[in-house]
C-alpha cells in the first residue's frame, strides 16, 4: 500500500521538481510521488540484542587477489581487446536504449526502477484462462481480455507494483537484520536468476526439487551439512566446532518462491515453522499459501527474472546497510544463537587435534 506524503496534501507544488535527467530505466516511466517510510524501521526486534552479545575473535585474513602479471600475454591480449571495445565499439551512431535480455541477469534493476511500463513490457500483467482462476485473486485482477472464447485474466499492474515494492522492503529489511533469505525457483530457465538473487542477498538458492521435510525433518536431511560461525564483518570465526555438532541446520528467515504452484510443500513447511514467504501469485495460484504475494505472471521468464532481480537488489541494499552499521559498531543482527564463547586455552589443542584427524565435513547443500 502506498500512502501519499503529507507534502502532497498541501499542494502539488510543495514537492521539489524532479530533475530533467532521467535514468535509462525510468525513460518511459510515469512519475511517482514519495512512498511511505516506516518510522519504526530501525527497531530491534530481538530482546537483548546489543553490541556485546557476540564475542568475535581475531579473524584470519582473506586470501589475496590473484596478481596480474605485467607481461602475461593473455592479460595483454585481454586488455587490448577491452580497450578496443571501449574505444571503437559505440562509434558510428547513437543507438536508442533498448531491452537486452541478458541485462536482467547481468545487471538487474533495483526496487526504485519498478515502473508500470517495465512490468507491462515484461508481460507480468498476463494471467491465465478465466476458467482456471482462483477466486481469492479477484482483488488483484484488472479485467478480462481475449477473443474467440479463450479469455484470460489481466492482472492490475499498479497492484503488482505495490506488492512488489512491499516485498522488496521485506527482503531488504530481513537482510538488514542479518536474516537468511532462501530463493527458490524450480522451473526451467529460472536457475540463473535464482542464483544471482541469492548471491546478491548473500542468502541461499534452490533451483531443483524441494526435498519434502528439509525444514520439518531438517535434522535428518540436513544433518550432515557444514555449519560455520561468522562475526559482524562476515568473517569466519573458528573455535565453535564442538558446539556446532549439536546445532541443527539453520532455517531460513524468509523464503522467496518464484513458482508456488510446484512448491506447495515448501510453502506448507514454512507456514508450519513460522517462516514468512514471498511469492509470485498468478491468477491460478492460491494466494493464502504466501505471506507477501506478488500478483504477476509466473509463466513468463522475463517477468520472473525481473522480479528475482529486483528482490536480489533489495537484499543487496539491505546487506550494504548492515555492513555499514556493523563497521560503526551497531549490530542489528539477531543474537539468540545460544553459542558460548570458546575458552581460549582450548583453542590450540583443538587446532592441533583437527590437523591430526583431518576431518572432512560435507559442504552445505550436499544431499
Amino acid at each position, binding site marked *: 500500500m502506498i500512502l501519499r506524503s503529507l507534502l502532497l496534501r498541501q499542494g502539488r507544488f510543495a514537492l521539489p521538481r524532479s530533475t530533467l535527467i532521467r535514468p535509462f530505466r525510468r525513460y518511459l516511466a510515469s512519475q511517482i510521488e514519495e512512498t511511505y517510510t516506516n518510522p519504526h524501521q530501525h527497531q530491534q526486534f530481538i530482546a537483548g540484542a546489543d553490541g556485546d552479545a557476540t564475542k568475535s575473535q581475531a579473524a584470519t585474513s582473506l586470501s589475496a587477489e590473484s596478481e596480474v602479471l605485467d*607481461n602475461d600475454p593473455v592479460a595483454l591480449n585481454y586488455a587490448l581487446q577491452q580497450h578496443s571495445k571501449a*574505444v571503437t565499439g559505440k562509434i558510428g551512431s547513437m543507438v*536508442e536504449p533498448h531491452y537486452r535480455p541478458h541485462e536482467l541477469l547481468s545487471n538487474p534493476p533495483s526496487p526504485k526502477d519498478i515502473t508500470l511500463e517495465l512490468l507491462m513490457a515484461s508481460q507480468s500483467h498476463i494471467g491465465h484462462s478465466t476458467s482456471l482462476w482462483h477466486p481469492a485473486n479477484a482483488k488483484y485482477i484488472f479485467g478480462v481480455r481475449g477473443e474467440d472464447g479463450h479469455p484470460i485474466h489481466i492482472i492490475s499492474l499498479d497492484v503488482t507494483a505495490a506488492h512488489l515494492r512491499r516485498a522488496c522492503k521485506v527482503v531488504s529489511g530481513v537482510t538488514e537484520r542479518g536474516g537468511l533469505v532462501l530463493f527458490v525457483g524450480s522451473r526451467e530457465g529460472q536457475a540463473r536468476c535464482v542464483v544471482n538473487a541469492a548471491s546478491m542477498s548473500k542468502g541461499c538458492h534452490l533451483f531443483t526439487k524441494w526435498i519434502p521435510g528439509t525444514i520439518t525433518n531438517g535434522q535428518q536431511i540436513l544433518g550432515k551439512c557444514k555449519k560455520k560461525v561468522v562475526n559482524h564483518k562476515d568473517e569466519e570465526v573458528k573455535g565453535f566446532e564442538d558446539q556446532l555438532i549439536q546445532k541443527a541446520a539453520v532455517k531460513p528467515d524468509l523464503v522467496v518462491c518464484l513458482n508456488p504452484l510446484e512448491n506447495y510443500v515448501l510453502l506448507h513447511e514454512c507456514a508450519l515453522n513460522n517462516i514468512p514467504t514471498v511469492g509470485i501469485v498468478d491468477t491460478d495460484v492460491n494466494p493464502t499459501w504466501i505471506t507477501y504475494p506478488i500478483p504477476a505472471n509466473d509463466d513468463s521468464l522475463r517477468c520472473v527474472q525481473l522480479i528475482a532481480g529486483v528482490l536480489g537488489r533489495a537484499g543487496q541494499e539491505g546487506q550494504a546497510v548492515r555492513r555499514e552499521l556493523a563497521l560503526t559498531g551497531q549490530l542489528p543482527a539477531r543474537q539468540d544463537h545460544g553459542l558460548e564463547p570458546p575458552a581460549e586455552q582450548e583453542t590450540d589443542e583443538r587446532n592441533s587435534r583437527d590437523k591430526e584427524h583431518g576431518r572432512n565435513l560435507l559442504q552445505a547443500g550436499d544431499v
Partner: protein
Amino acid sequence: MITRRLLRPASAFASSGWTCTACARASIISQTRIPQQQKRAHHVPPLTYDETFTRAGIPGLLSPHGYLIAWSDYQESLVNKLNELTAGEPIEHAQTKDLAIQFARDPMSASLFNHASMAHNNHFFFSTLAPVPLSLEKVPSLKQSLCNTFGTIDTLKATMLDTAATMFGPGYVWLVWARNLDNAPVGGSSKSRGSWRILTTYLAGTPYPEAGYRQQGIDANNQNAHSYNDYMKATPPVGMFGAHSKSGQEQAKMPPGGTQVLPVLCVNTWEHVWLRDYGINGKRKYLADWWGVIDWGLVEQKTPTEASHPVEFIRS
C-alpha cells in the same frame, strides 16, 4: 529490387465502415499513409564540440557550411538510411561496427554494410578534431611510440598525407596499432608485440580485420588476378590440415593475415568534405590543414597502453 513493405494495412485507416462512392473509386495509394518513423533506433551521435563547430566550423579546416555538409547533413542521411534498412528487424539495435563485421561477407546486404561502415568511419574522423587541438609535443609518450615505428614524425606525416593524396577516388587513410602476425615475442620481450601501421580503405571499406573481406585496401582496377590474390591471401596455404591449410583458411572467421587492429586516427578523403572549402584542386592543401587540427590528446586516449609504453624498435 528492394520493396518497402507497408507497415499497416489500408483498411486500418478507414474511420467508418461506410465510404462514399467517390472515395471508394479513389486510388488505394491516396488512402494509405505510411506512418513516419515513430521510434528510430539510430540517431546522429553527439560530437563533443558540435555546438562550436556548427557555429564557427572547424577552425583551420572547414567553414560552418562545410561542416554542415560533411557532418550534420551527411551523417543524418547515413543514419536515416540505416534506420530504413534495419527497421523492424532484430539487427535494428546493433552498433555500426557490429553491422559492418556481420555483413562484410554478405553481398545481398552490401548497402547496409556500406552505410554502417561509412557512418562509423565518418564519426571516427570527426571524433579526433577539436577547436583548440592539443599539439603532439604535449603528448611525449605517444610521440615517442610513433617515432619508434616511423623514425620521425615528419616521416609519419609525409607517408600518411602522400598515401591519401595519391589514392584515386574517395576513401579513408588510417593510423592503426596492429599486433604482429607471429605470436612469438620479438626480441624476447612480450611488450613489443605490435607496431603502428598505415591502412587505406577505399570508399566505405573498414579497417577491422574481422570484416577484412570489405577492407577495400586497394583499387581493384589497378590489379591483376595474381596481385589481387596476393593481397587477399597474405600467407600461402601450408599443409593439408590445420589453421594454415587451404580448407582451414577458408573456414577461418578472420581473413588470412588478419590480426588485432586498433585504429586511432583517420583522414576522410571523400570529396564532399573538402570540395566546398578547397575546390577541386585543393586535396593536398586540405590534407595539410587537417594535420594541423588533429587533437593528439584525443588520439592518445584511443591509443592502447601497450603502444604508449616505450617499445623497442622492431626491424621487420
